[in-house]
């Protein structure tokens, strides 16, 4: 009945050949860090190169006037200026801070609301369907209320962001809780987990994958609401990405608009990388990682 891993006791020849096989297998499946990074990177670069090439070709055909559809060169030149301007970094700082604070608030509200609705039957009957309905309410509809409640303070922006993102987070939580395997809930209950403990030890971790998915969707809602909401209060000394985006459009600055879009995409990519890492960690734990080639 002794159980020994490879690092334990002495080994016979056969076992050592087994170890050799392991090494080989290891080399096949787990290439070096550099190669792994490269294999994650080249498809992205290829996709990017393809997209830019296509764009350039379209521009060369002269399909549209250059002021309507600027070429990559123009846009990247503008992006270059933008990258060294304080406008970008100040804007990113302001918008990033608002996004972080607003999203954090939305997550807090969404988690509490989601858990409450998921497990309390009366609340679910009363508010359950309201959550999706609220989710479909466009941000601009909340603007008057935001101003009524918070005047021209940053809170008005947060209000819009939270109203935009919290329902999405809550829906993720509800979905996750709904699909927790009943066997695990029963196991938890039998092990003595009741009430909050049941949440903490069973329901929350079991629903975690769905909650992370909900957070990801919530982030997208938060960010989009923020882009609109930042126009609500164009505060004095603080420029923001949302305001810059709208102004670029209002001034018909196509290259600048596209430069800002690229910045937004990059921010989105970074945030997705964070969510992706979290998700991958969960999947590794759960043993569902090795299904596709990733």
């Amino acid at each position, binding site marked *: 009945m002794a*159980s020994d891993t490879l690092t*334990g006791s002495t080994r016979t020849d056969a076992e050592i050949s087994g170890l050799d096989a392991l090494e080989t297998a290891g080399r096949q499946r787990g290439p070096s860090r550099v190669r792994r990074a490269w294999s994650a990177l080249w498809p992205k670069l290829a996709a990017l190169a393809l997209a830019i090439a296509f764009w350039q070709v379209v521009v060369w055909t002269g399909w549209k006037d250059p002021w309507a559809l600027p070429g990559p060169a123009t846009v990247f030149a503008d992006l270059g200026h933008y990258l060294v301007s304080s406008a970008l970094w100040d804007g990113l700082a302001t918008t990033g801070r608002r996004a972080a604070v607003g999203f954090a608030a939305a997550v807090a509200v969404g988690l509490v609301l989601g858990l409450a609705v998921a497990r309390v039957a009366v609340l679910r009957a009363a508010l359950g369907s309201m959550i999706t309905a609220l989710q479909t309410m466009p941000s601009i509809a909340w603007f008057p209320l935001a101003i009524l409640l918070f005047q021209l303070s940053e809170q008005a922006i947060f209000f819009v962001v939270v109203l935009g993102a919290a329902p999405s987070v809550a829906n993720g939580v509800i979905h996750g809780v709904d699909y927790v395997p009943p066997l695990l809930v*029963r196991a*938890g209950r039998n092990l003595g987990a009741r009430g909050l403990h049941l949440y903490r*030890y069973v329901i929350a971790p079991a629903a975690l994958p769905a909650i992370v998915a909900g957070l990801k969707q919530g982030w997208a809602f938060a960010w989009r609401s923020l882009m609109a909401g930042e126009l609500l209060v164009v505060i004095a000394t603080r420029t923001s990405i949302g305001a810059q985006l709208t102004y670029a459009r209002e001034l018909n600055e196509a290259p600048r608009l596209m430069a800002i879009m690229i910045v937004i995409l990059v921010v989105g990519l970074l945030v997705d990388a964070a969510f992706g890492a979290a998700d991958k960690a969960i999947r590794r734990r759960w043993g569902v990682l090795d299904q596709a080639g990733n």
Partner: protein
Amino acid sequence: MTSTTTTPRSATGSVALRGVTKVYGQGEHAVLALDGVSLDVAPGEFVCLVGASGCGKSTLLNLVAGLDRASGGRIELGEGVNPGLMFQEPALFPWLTVEANVEVPLKLRGLPRAERRAKVADLLRTVHLAEFGRKRPHELSGGMRQRVALARTLALDTPVLLMDEPFGALDAMTRDILHDELERIWSERRLSVLFVTHNVREAARLADRIILLSSRPGRIIWSTRVDVPRPRRIDSPEIATIAAEVTDRLRTEVGRHGQ
């Protein structure tokens, strides 16, 4: 969702079922899983439950554990007793390591960290998985998972233990060893055990009393005391004799229902 029919009146460790009925589903598709089952488990008694596949054994354990609501009848448990149930499937938490799985009931009981560690190590040694503490459930074999579930249930430290085919996925040797361990813990802690198994020798090896359940509807149709003194050996002739008798009864019962 605790059974409303659970009235804590009896002595600690005792389990009493009075005319317990369980119906799944409604209307046309209803299935009568248990029909008027009355059963007493005395404190410190080891009762084995045998019966054909689908006769309602798991249902019965679920009801006693308070995880399901009986459709009729009463279940009485000792004051404040929360019976530990070892499910038919391992039901481990996939997001926790083996150690952490076993630790959950200890955490829930609020034990200090050092004590928890010692207990977990001890329990994993009991089920012979001391070296697998850091693995995750999906890295274990079927039998190993079952043993982790056993360790987790034992960690509950409750006077009533409900076990649903706990050793079904184990080889004979490992099973023998765990029989000894379980018997030791049972007598040390004076547990009341309700134990479901398909292995009649196992039943005879462990039980003070063996109860036979009929199929659809599940009813108690026969029971016998096992008066063989302990320690017992599963390959002893006395055990074989009792096992043969139970098998006969079972055969008659299943035959009665058979096509």
